[in-house]
């Protein structure tokens, strides 16, 4: 029957020749190469659960009076969007578990992208000819964060609504065009009733279209250029080996997909996430503590909390304080991140094609900068929860903030320098080790020195 299917398709599409080489395509099996797939399968979960959620969500900011199952909010005015999420969580069979799987999948999706991106960074896989894919990957990261933000803001609960207010204020702070940009993008003075509908359109339509397009390109380029692999004895740069796509790698990948689905399902059922009924509906005149966004927005929140009260006044106009930590610095960071392949090329003057991966120690400068940058982002994310940290450690929040202001600038430099030095040290150590001689015993019982391995060491 499979034979008949193949013939049927080949008659119409000439598929057999493609299938012949595709099915035997080599996929290197290193475990770290699977992180991108983890992100992909998290995305699949997001789409599947997301479709279910769209059948129940009402994307309207119109006020309704809740008369549903959750007693403490009965008789309370809230947006139709919030009421629909309450209904989904309490009255729809499997509604809450679908919502929670969706939200956990979003958190893990961005985490997997970040982990994958760091694997690519520290192994230098973004070097020529893969710079385009690095740029596409960067846009996927930004799109994923945008999808997450619009997604968790749609229920219009007190916690996420506060975050939307902050986003509005940051947009407002842009010089010259800020007020227009905020009014147009959000549909009027905050809170505008149409904003939730716009978030829906962005979240399920525009951002998804962009993600699917970018994802398709990303995978097609990896397929076409073939995967990179680590330099080991016996390997050459102009080949790549691994499991064949069919059936070995396909099976492993399907297994990974199912494992990712399973982990997300387990979290979605057992660990509560975003319990909007506890936060209450959004009210622009009320707030609750502590107030944090989801983890991948935490670095922006940390910037807003740490940045000092500096403001520029120009000829009767203001460039308000939130502009610097909210817009200017993130754009600079993003640009540095996106353009890294070209920055590195300019600094190292290395325009060679690379299909071998570096170990971290092979590029001390890159590893140092990467470690410093990573620690900077981690510290900023922690700074976003400075009040939670203050309570946990029993110190005043002002002390935590002041300390982090210093730490966030000093520690990345130390970490970066330490990693740089460690990489150089490791490499010097390797080079200093005397050539490795292998001894073989021949049939007569004598010893023969094999310099087969020495030659590879010196490479």
């Amino acid at each position, binding site marked *: 029957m499979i034979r008949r299917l193949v013939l049927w398709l080949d008659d119409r599409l000439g598929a057999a020749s493609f299938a012949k080489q595709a099915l035997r395509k080599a996929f290197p099996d290193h*475990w770290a190469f699977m992180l991108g797939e983890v992100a992909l399968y998290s995305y699949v979960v997001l789409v599947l659960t997301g479709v279910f959620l769209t059948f129940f969500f009402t994307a309207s900011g119109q006020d309704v009076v809740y008369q549903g199952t959750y007693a403490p909010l009965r008789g309370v005015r809230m947006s139709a969007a919030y009421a629909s999420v309450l209904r989904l969580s*309490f009255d729809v069979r499997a509604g809450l578990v679908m919502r929670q799987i969706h939200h956990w999948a979003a958190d893990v999706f961005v985490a997997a992208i970040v982990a994958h991106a760091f694997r690519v960074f520290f192994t230098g896989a973004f070097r020529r000819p893969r710079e385009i894919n690095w740029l596409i990957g960067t846009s996927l990261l930004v799109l994923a964060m945008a999808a997450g933000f619009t997604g968790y803001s749609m229920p219009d609960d*007190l916690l996420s609504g506060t975050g939307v207010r902050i986003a509005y204020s940051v947009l407002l702070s842009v010089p010259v065009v800020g007020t227009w940009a905020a009014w147009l993008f959000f549909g009027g003075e905050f809170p505008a009733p149409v904003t939730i509908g716009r978030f829906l359109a962005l979240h399920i339509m525009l951002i998804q279209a962009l993600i699917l397009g970018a994802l398709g390109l990303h995978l097609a380029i990896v397929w076409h250029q073939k995967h990179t692999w680590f330099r080991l004895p016996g390997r050459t740069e102009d080949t790549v080996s691994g499991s064949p796509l069919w059936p070995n790698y396909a099976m492993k990948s399907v297994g990974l997909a199912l494992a990712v689905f399973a*982990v997300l399902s387990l979290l979605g059922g057992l660990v509560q996430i975003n319990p909007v009924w506890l936060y209450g509906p959004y009210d622009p005149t009320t707030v609750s503590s502590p107030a944090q966004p989801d983890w991948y927005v935490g670095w922006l929140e940390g910037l807003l909390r740490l940045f000092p009260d500096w403001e520029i006044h120009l000829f009767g106009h203001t460039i308000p304080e939130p502009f610097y930590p909210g817009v200017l610095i993130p754009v600079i960071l993003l640009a540095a991140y996106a353009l890294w392949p070209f920055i590195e090329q300019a600094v190292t003057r290395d325009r060679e094609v690379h299909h071998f991966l570096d170990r971290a120690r092979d590029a001390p400068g890159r590893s140092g900068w990467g470690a410093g940058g990573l620690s900077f982002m981690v510290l900023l994310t922690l700074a976003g929860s400075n009040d939670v940290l203050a309570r946990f450690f029993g110190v005043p929040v002002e002390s935590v903030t002041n300390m982090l202001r210093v730490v966030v600038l000093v520690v990345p430099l130390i970490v970066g320098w330490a990693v740089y030095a460690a990489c150089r040290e490791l490499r010097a150590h390797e080079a200093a080790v005397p050539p490795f001689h292998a001894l073989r015993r021949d049939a007569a019982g004598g010893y023969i020195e094999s310099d087969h391995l020495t030659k590879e060491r010196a490479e």
Partner: protein
Amino acid sequence: MSRGRRFAIAAVGLALSAPLLLAGSKTGHSLAGPARQPPPHAAPRAAAAPPAPPRSASGGDVRRGADLFALHCASCHGSIGQGTPDGIPLAGIGAAAVDFVLATGRMPLSDPHQPMMRRGSNWTRRQIDDIVAFVTSLGPGGPPIPVVHPEAGDLTTGGQIYAENCAPCHGASGQGAAVGGGADAPDLYEATAVEVAEAVRIGPDPMPRFDTRQINAHELDSLVRYVEFLPRLPDRGGFSLGHIGPVAEGFIAWIVGLGAIVVIVRLIGTPN
């Protein structure tokens, strides 16, 4: 199977069973049988906290109170409660304030410059009544010990009052939060009905106060009913992570979520 693989599988199992164990221990009620959805929390009974010692109807003994005061309080508040640099004057502070700080163990405070915090109270009910009687004899004024009837309150009204006045500091679920200046708004899970009412009326440092003109007696009943309900808020989604919110969720996503997946990935892939 190699030892490495066996260890990895065990690690995955442990990582994934962690939420299971935590969920089971913390939210037993949400693991109620699969027969129906958990019943809506329409009319929870109020004051599930352990009952406070009943108040003596006739009040305490002023002389016994004076002796206790001289022993435990006078060193900071002055021999007749006139106040010292280490303790505020107590004339006219009212019965509710004294009762509150003693019943919740906030007083005596070993270091007068530390913020007041709930501690296990070692006072007996009789001792508290006696000290209350003595301090109120120093001068008139201050809120009396409120009489609350949470069962007569309305849960939704209480929730609204709570969201407006209390949630900004104590958190939407009553889990508490840092409020700056080294102060903490504590969690509300241990507070009894009377203690909640007293705190509302007196505004213990650094809390603002809400007297009867702002929150009348019936509204206070509703508020107390809601606060007593907070420990039983439905955590229908599973383990609540202490109601900290996205910070805790982010940690779990990385450590449990991505962590378990990375262990699985290492099982599937090769080391080089």
